[in-house]
Every structure is written in C-alpha cells, then in structure tokens.
C-alpha cells in the first residue's frame, strides 16, 4: 500500500509539470476534474485542461530559464555578474505576450459562461431548498416533493462499522432526473447558505435564503452522480451529500407516474384524516 502511495504521488507530481507517458495519465485520471456527463461539463473540463496546459507551458519556460540560470550563473563557477538591469523591449514583450494569451483564453471562457447562464427553454423544473442539514426537492411540474438526508449510519462515521464504498455520498431519497431533457434547477435556502454541487454535471450554485438562483443541465447518460454541499453551513456541513439518479426519459416518466400514484394514495389518506377532523369539529360545533 505504502509503495502505491509513493508511486502515485510521485507520478502525479511529475504529471503536473511534464506531460509525458500514457502511464502517468492513467494513474492521475481519477484525481483530475471529472469530464462529466453533460455538454457543459465537457466544455468546462476542456477549459480546465486548456488553461492547465497553458500554465504548464509557461511554467516550463519560466522555471526552465530559472534552472539554466541557477545551474550556470554560480559564483562557485567563477562567473562575474553582468551589469544590465533593464530592457524596455523585453519588459514590453513580457507584458504584451501574457496579455494576448489571456485574451485568447478569455474568449472560449466567456462562451462557456454565456451558455451556462442560458436557462431558457427548460422542459422541466426542480426546486432545491437547503436546510441544516439536508436537501428538499420539489418537482415544480408535478406534486413530487421530498427531503433527502445522509444515509450513512453513525457507526460507519464513528468507526464502529466498516465504511461502505459510498461512505458519506449516499442519501435516503435520491433526486431522480431524466436524461436528454433540459432541466432547470431553482435553488434557495431556508436557513443559512448552502451550495448544491454535482461535479459530473458541472453544476454548483449557492442556496441563499431570500434568493432564488437558477441553473440548468441536460444529462447525457443514465447513472448515479454524487456530490456534496459546497458552502460551509454549520456543524454537519460535511454530511449533506447530493445524489442524482439519471434515468432514460421513459423510465423517468414511469417513475413520475409511480410517485404521483404513491402521493395520491398517501395524500388521500391525509385528506381522509382532514375530513374526519372537520367532521369532528363540526360535531363539536353542532353540540
């Protein structure tokens, strides 16, 4: 095990600066940003890699120059120091070139950002509300409405039982969403700030009391995508995960029907009770 850590960390260190062998990449894949399963998340990943590579190239040049100088310009080698201490053209060059590179990066970044902010034309809407410490999901287009709470048992957290593979990333009720539909997500909070984050969808936004924030996604592939609250919200901030289960559209529609049926069943029960209550009070009144 120890050896594995060593190898992995050493290769990752290398990987950050020198992009060489296929092997190194295979090893650090899980420790890079996820490419995700939506068009936007792929684009965000692309931007991340683009800027990362640009930094690598600049890094190699800058640190390379430094290494040459450290190797060559040593007093112990008997060199005497040159006297130059300015050069207008050089200084102009290294102000202008970074500026141009930055313009080059800012264009694709702005494009992705504009796309991310375009919530128009959504086919369905889910309202997410943050609570200390759980999430509430309301499907605005149907009357599905439930809370989602960490499912990991206390014994696992307090090391009395073995931790399962989804430790801290599992909830009792997952947010079920369809693939291939534009989904709008509204965010708010009932107490303090929270942030709803699913890395695979590149969705992260703050849930703020008194505000309704929005974001959107189209999920490309069915699957289970896990994330966490990403804004400090008090004692159990580390214990309010987000789990999204993406189903193909037909299965999703079926799920909605099932849920509504279940709701009908339970809400008719509630209604019955209400009726009973009403008649009770009426009885009381009549007496």
């Amino acid at each position, binding site marked *: 095990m120890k050896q594995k850590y060593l190898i992995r960390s050493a290769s990752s260190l290398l990987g950050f600066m020198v992009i060489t062998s296929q092997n190194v990449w295979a090893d650090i894949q899980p420790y890079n940003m996820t490419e995700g399963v939506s068009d936007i998340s792929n684009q965000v990943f692309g931007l991340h890699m683009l800027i990362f590579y640009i930094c690598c190239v600049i890094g190699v040049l800058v640190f390379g120059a430094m290494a040459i*100088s450290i190797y060559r310009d040593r*007093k112990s080698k008997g060199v005497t*120091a040159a006297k130059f*201490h300015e050069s207008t053209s050089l200084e102009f060059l290294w102000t202008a070139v970074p500026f141009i590179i930055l313009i080059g990066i800012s264009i694709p970044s702005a494009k992705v950002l504009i796309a*991310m902010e375009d919530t128009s034309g959504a086919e369905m809407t889910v309202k997410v509300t943050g609570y200390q410490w759980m999430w509430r999901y309301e499907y605005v287009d149907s009357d599905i409405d439930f809370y989602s709470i960490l499912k990991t048992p206390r014994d696992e957290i307090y090391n009395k039982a073995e931790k399962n593979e989804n430790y801290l990333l599992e909830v009792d009720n997952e947010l079920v969403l369809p693939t291939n539909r534009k989904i709008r997500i509204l965010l708010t909070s009932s107490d303090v700030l929270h942030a709803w984050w699913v890395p695979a969808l590149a969705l992260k*936004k703050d849930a703020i009391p008194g505000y309704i924030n929005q974001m959107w996604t189209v999920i490309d592939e069915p699957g289970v995508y896990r994330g*966490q609250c990403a804004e*400090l919200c008090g004692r159990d901030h580390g214990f309010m995960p987000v789990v999204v289960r993406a189903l193909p559209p037909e299965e999703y529609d079926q799920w909605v029907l099932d849920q509504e049926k279940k709701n009908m069943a339970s809400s008719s029960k509630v209604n019955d009770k209400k009726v009973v209550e009403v008649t009770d009070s009426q009885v009381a009144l009549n007496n």
Partner: protein
Amino acid sequence: MSTTTADDHHDEHHPSGMMRWITTTNHKDIGTLYLWFSFIMFFIGGFMALIIRTELFQPGMQFVDPQFFNSMTTMHAIIMIFGVVMPAFTGLANWLIPMMIGGTDMALPRMNNWSFWILPFAFTMMLSTLFMDGGGPAGGWTLYPPLSLQTGDALPFVIFAIHFMGMSSIMGAINVVATILNMRAPGMTLMRMPLFVWTWLITAYLLIAVMPVLAGGVTMLLTDKFFETSFFNAAGGGDPVLFQHIFWFFGHPEVYILILPSFGVVSSIIPTFARKPLFGYSSMVYATASIAFLSFIVWAHHMFTVGMPLAGQLFFMFATMLIAVPTGVKVFNWISTMWRGSMTFETPMLFSIAFIILFTIGGFSGLMLAITPADYQYHDTYFVVAHFHYVLVPGSIFAIIAAVYYWLPKWTGHMYNEFWGKTHFWLSTIFVNVTFFPMHFVGLAGMPRRIPDYALQFSDYNQIATIGAFGFGFAQLIFLWLVIATIRGGAKATDRVWEGAEGLEWTLTSPPPYHSFTTPPNVEAELGLASHK
C-alpha cells in the same frame, strides 16, 4: 552595544526589564515585539492546523467534534492572517524602513507603541472565545451570515477583536506612510527607495482603504445579531449576499496586503545573492501599483457561485485575469535579475528562490480559478485551499523567513548557523509541497473544503497531506531554536553582512545603534550613485 554614535547617552534613560518593552517607542524594539508576537501566533495557529490535519488523516470522525473542527479552521485562518503574516510584515517594516530610508525612527513613535500593544489583547480575547458557551467562532474566517450569526457567546468578542486588529493595522499603516513620506534622508528620492519600502507604502494605502470596510461589515453583523437590524437578514428585507460583497471588497485587497511586502523582501534578497542590480526597478514599482489598483475591482471572483448577473461575472473574470499580467512582470524581473548574475545560495536566497517557484505555482492555480466556468467546479474545494496555501505559505511565510535570515545578522550582530538554516530550508520546502500539492488533486476530484470527514476516494492524498503538515510543523522548531541561538551568540557579523548587499541599512553597524541615523547619511555616496544623475 558597541556603537559610539553621538546619541549613546539616550540609551541610559530607558526603563529596563518588562517596562522597557511596555513603554518603548523605539522602532527596533517595537519591530522585535511584532516579530516575536507573530512567531508565537505562528505556533498557535500551526497547532490548530495540526488538529485539523490529524482529524483529516483518515476518513471517519476520530478526534474532534465537527463544530470544534469548524472553529479550528476559522481560528486558524484568522490567526494566520491577522496574527502572523500582518504583524510579521509590520515588524519588518518597523525594523527596516527607518534604516532603509536613512531616518532616525518611525514618524509616530507613541502611536507605534499603541498599535503593537493592542494586538496581544485582541488575540487573547479572540482565543478566549474557545472556552465560551457555544465554543469559538465556527462560520469560517469569511464570517458569512446567516451562519456566523448562529455563533454563541463568542460573536461579539470576535467582532471586537477584529475591530482591534483593524485599528492596530490602520495605525501601523498610517505610521508607515508618515515615515516614508517625511523621514527620508536628503537624496533618498521616491524612485531610489528599496522595493521593500515601496511595496510597504502601497500596502499601507491598501490597509487604510480596506480595514474600515471590514470593520463596517462586521459591525453590521453585530447589530444584526444584537440590535435587530436586518442588513443581512432576508426575512427582514436584508441581503445575505451584501455581506459577501463587503467582505471581499476588503478581502481581495487583503490578500495583496499579505503578499506585496513579500515581493519587496524578495526584491531585496535576489539582487544581493545574484550580485547584480534588480532588473526593471521602475516596472516593479508600477507593477506593484497596478496590482494594488486592480485588487479593488476583482473582489467578486470569490463569489461567482452566488448567482451574479452574466455581465458581472464576465467583468470580474476579465479583471481577475488581468492581475496575472503585473504579477508575471514581477516573476520575469526576478528571473532576469538572477540571469547572468554571480549567484551564491545562502539560506535567504534559497527561501527566495523557493518563493518565486512556489508562488508562481499558486499564481497558476489563481489564473485557473479566474476562469469563471471552471471556478464553478473549483470553488469551495481543496483546489482553492491548495491555491491560497501556495501563495501564503511558500509565498508570504517563506518571504518572511527569508527576511529573518537575511536581516538577522544585522539585527543581532551574529551570523546564524548556515547548516541549520539550510536544513530548515530543505525540510520546509519538501514538506510544504508534500502538504499542499496533493490538495490540488483531491480538490479536482471533488473534495469540498471545510469538512471534517470525507469520502473514501480522498483518503490517500489526505494522508500524505497530514504527514507533510507534521513535517512542516516540526521543521519550524529548528527555525525557532536557530533564531534564539543567533540572538544569544554566534560568529560576529560584519556591517555589510552579505558581499552583495546594497542599501543604507548595511552601512550601519551590526547590530545597529538604537536610533538608526541620527545624522542623515549621504545617500548618493552610500548607494554609489553619481549625484548629478
């Protein structure tokens, strides 16, 4: 004291023992007080960091309660920022600025005494909140409401402590400005000042501009909590996001307050050990000034995820990216200073070189964070933690350590032990990377910051980081021991100390006389400038 300057008789008048330190108005004494205060707080803040890293060594809750964990992250940050880096820079400013500009002392010596002595009270008050009902502050150093308003009895004490720290910084800053503008020896024109003086002058203006903003923000928290105002309470018509704007309008200039004086330190050290004048002096000054200006218009890059309008996000993205330009100019200038020099690698030089490399890595991750769509993924993860630790630990802290090694022989009259200095350097540099480099990866892989427990896939790298943190912590004990040993004795330092050292402070004896320059030095002669230039 072995000096025979005209003012020796002054020395006989000060009180001795504790009273000397409590009543002192001398810039060197106050500088020493600031530096020791900072050093002590460094170990307290570091101890808290080790509590955090111990809990994070493995998944699962092992040692502390989550609430206490949160108060550790909160206190650690406040102590390191307000109790370590800022006082250390003020200590350096006190010691060095009068000597560098050919002055006697700071311009406002009594206020100088006061601005230091506020600090121990402020921090005692803040630390005492750990023992109060409800524990210490646990809402993060950013104090975002509504969460920070859930703090127990600690809240008013923390807010008053922040007020005191702010007053101390503002007084210190006013003193620096007054000193630089009024106390320069004839011939010490602004554009001949060492960069350390320049960067501090600009930092002082930043402090004067933004500390009152923080004070206003936290006072509004106070009235929201105790006097039923609703500045930040949505239910009362207020706006929780307003606090974030106020906080970061202070907060982003603040991060430059934490780095600009380091730029000055490194700009002094590199030329000395490269035996070559600083490359691009005037562009360094302009770059510092433009960084300071830009730092006022980028604050919202800390809050891209709050749901700002598109135009706002675009503006803050572009402005933030722009900061990379003057920052790059500085790095290029330092490397050009080394280029074709005649270098030796004493401890201060080693720390400065590590500063350049590792600060630049922090700058790279800063540039990545500036890309708004990507920041949606990075924000509030360990990637951000890695970023700011790279700019603050091997950035600000390394520069402070480099400064101590560089000027300690001047201050004490003794050389430190080079072997142990280098050992300290290598251990610090290795362990700082072992600690913070893996945080980039867990952050990218999806680990949020400020959590006491994490999913299993983050275990390996967290373990490495914890090992690194302990190594780094223990390496600093060498530093502590070495500083004490150097104060007590050691090889006698010459006045110039370093072969390549330039600047007025090196024309004084080592250690320097109690009052630096009682008669103005001949600046042109001392700096080897032709006076007609």
